[in-house]
């Protein structure tokens, strides 16, 4: 197929496995976010794609051609590093034109291309600045422009926005996504920030313990997590252990109508998003519990309910929720379609 294909990529350091049999196909023009907790192997996988690490086994293909053995400097991928890796001895223009300079592109053309790239990232007129005199966001843009200087086949970014403050980070996420759509370039971003992944990606790849746990669109990842790891990592969720049969299930605090387990299955874990749980007066729902804590965040209210020993969190907007107090016994209403039965 056209695009990037990873076939059975494994990487271990001194016998310790960092990436474990990863298979992934990324069609051209896709924006991929690799998401996972630190130490899950996402950065190692990105570096392997870039050629900075050699896989212990497996193959990397670009448009059907095997590039596993091609060294990093011959792959022509653009990469933005977590530290940005701007060359401190070169100014902004020289940094951006570095890939052209080492290919002996003439000076005039280098200057022209650098100006184009600076325009692309909204930094016109900054070519002569020393990189030390840039703000965090500007350094970010320079690193992006430099990585795009050669119009690479693949654009790789390792936690590119982690050094920015929250507000700037959100603005950059939108900007990066727009830039990618404009250029149509296949992009892979490594991040541990799930909001960032949801904002930018066509395809979210959730990694844990060196493996791909789930690769799907953001909505599908959120709505249909395949296992407890994904459900818990993407947003917050309630994991409820249930017993049951083909007829319905029983949770510690009561029954949950409408949820059906697969034939032959007697126990399972349900994942229910806090915003899908509605608090109602006792008697209006078969599942009940006692309110143990209420956290008012202004825009939303989180209510912690103890349902037969399992803690369940419900989130509601202040307007939608009836007045309850700590210690009240409440009913928990949840729609069957919002309950996700996880593979155990």
């Amino acid at each position, binding site marked *: 197929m056209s695009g990037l294909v990873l076939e059975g990529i494994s990487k271990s350091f001194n016998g310790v496995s960092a990436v474990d049999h990863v298979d992934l196909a990324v069609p051209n023009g896709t924006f991929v976010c690799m998401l996972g907790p630190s130490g899950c192997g996402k950065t190692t996988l990105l570096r392997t794609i870039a050629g900075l690490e050699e896989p212990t086994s497996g193959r990397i293909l670009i448009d059907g051609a095997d590039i596993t053995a091609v060294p990093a400097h011959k792959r022509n991928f653009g*990469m933005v590093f977590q530290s940005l890796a701007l060359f401190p001895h070169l100014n902004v223009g020289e940094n951006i034109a570095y890939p052209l300079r080492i290919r002996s592109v003439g000076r005039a053309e280098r200057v022209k291309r650098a100006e184009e790239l600076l325009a692309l990232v909204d930094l016109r007129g900054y070519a002569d600045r020393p990189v030390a005199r840039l703000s965090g966001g500007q350094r970010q843009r320079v690193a992006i422009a430099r990585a795009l200087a*050669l119009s690479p086949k693949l654009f790789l970014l390792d936690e590119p926005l982690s050094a920015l403050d929250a507000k700037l980070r959100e603005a950059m996420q939108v900007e990066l996504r727009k830039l990618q759509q404009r250029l149509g370039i296949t992009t892979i971003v490594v991040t541990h920030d799930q909001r960032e992944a949801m904002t930018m990606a066509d395809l979210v790849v959730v990694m844990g313990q060196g493996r791909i746990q789930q690769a799907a669109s953001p909505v599908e990842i959120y709505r249909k997590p395949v296992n407890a790891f994904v459900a818990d990592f993407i947003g917050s969720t309630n994991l409820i252990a249930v017993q049951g049969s083909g007829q319905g299930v029983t949770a510690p605090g009561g029954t949950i109508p409408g949820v059906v387990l697969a034939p032959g299955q007697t126990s399972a874990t349900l994942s229910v998003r806090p915003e899908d749980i509605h608090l109602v007066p006792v008697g209006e729902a078969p599942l009940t519990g006692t309110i143990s804590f209420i956290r008012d965040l202004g825009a939303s209210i989180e209510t912690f309910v103890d349902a037969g020993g399992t803690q369940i969190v419900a989130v509601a907007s202040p307007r939608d929720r009836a007045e309850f107090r700590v210690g009240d016994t409440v009913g928990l209403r949840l729609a069957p379609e919002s309950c996700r039965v996880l593979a155990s």
Partner: protein
Amino acid sequence: MSATLFRRCLFTLVAVFLAAPLIVIAGVSVNGQRTLVFPPVGFSTRWYGDIFADAAWRSALTASVTVATLAAALAVAVAFPLSWFLWRRHAPWARVFQILGTAPFVLPPVITALGFLTFWTSVGAYGQPWTVVIAHGIFFVTLPLVTLSLGFASIDRALVEAASTMGADDRTILRTIVLPLIRPYLISGFAFAFVLSLNEYIVAYMAVGFTLETLPIKIFNSLRYGYTPTMAAVSILFVAVAALIFGLIARFGDLPKLLGAWSSRN
């Protein structure tokens, strides 16, 4: 006693102790007369002129500067590829050479001096002027080795990776990234080796003591035959050159960091 007062007293006492002999030497170096008296009687700068005018002093100066320049260059030529290799490659056994490069400087100098004396005698090159260049080059290889190791450690490896993802191979990275970033450390390593070679006595003496007079050898030999004010002038010249060179390093580099402070902010 307050802490500031204590600091001032301590600084003053150490300063006086360190400066006293140099002040006296500076004084006698501008004496109007040839005898050794302090405070100076009369004033004359002709002893400084003698360093350059007197053939014997001038040739000692030339010899010292030539040896120091070549020896420092040799020390850097040995230290640079070694420290680059150690930084670039994972090869723990190659640390042996780093230890070898540090050893001459840690051992008492007389050891290195005697080692070279037996060596040059054994290979039949004893007394050749170039032998002292090699002897000093090896003796002082520690200095550029230390500054360069510090320098390499300060280069973010992501810079090298970034350059390689942009298409630069090893040689190009060395030329366009590593060399420009390491240059200050290269220069200070050279400068350290140069100043110390200029002042070194015993290794030079044992290698070429009877055929080539460097400045320290010349001063020592002159001391045996009695005092001349030119010695004082040369000594002051030494101090001035050292202070100038280290001052330049401090001006253009980060001296506290070079000497082991972690951060240079204060």
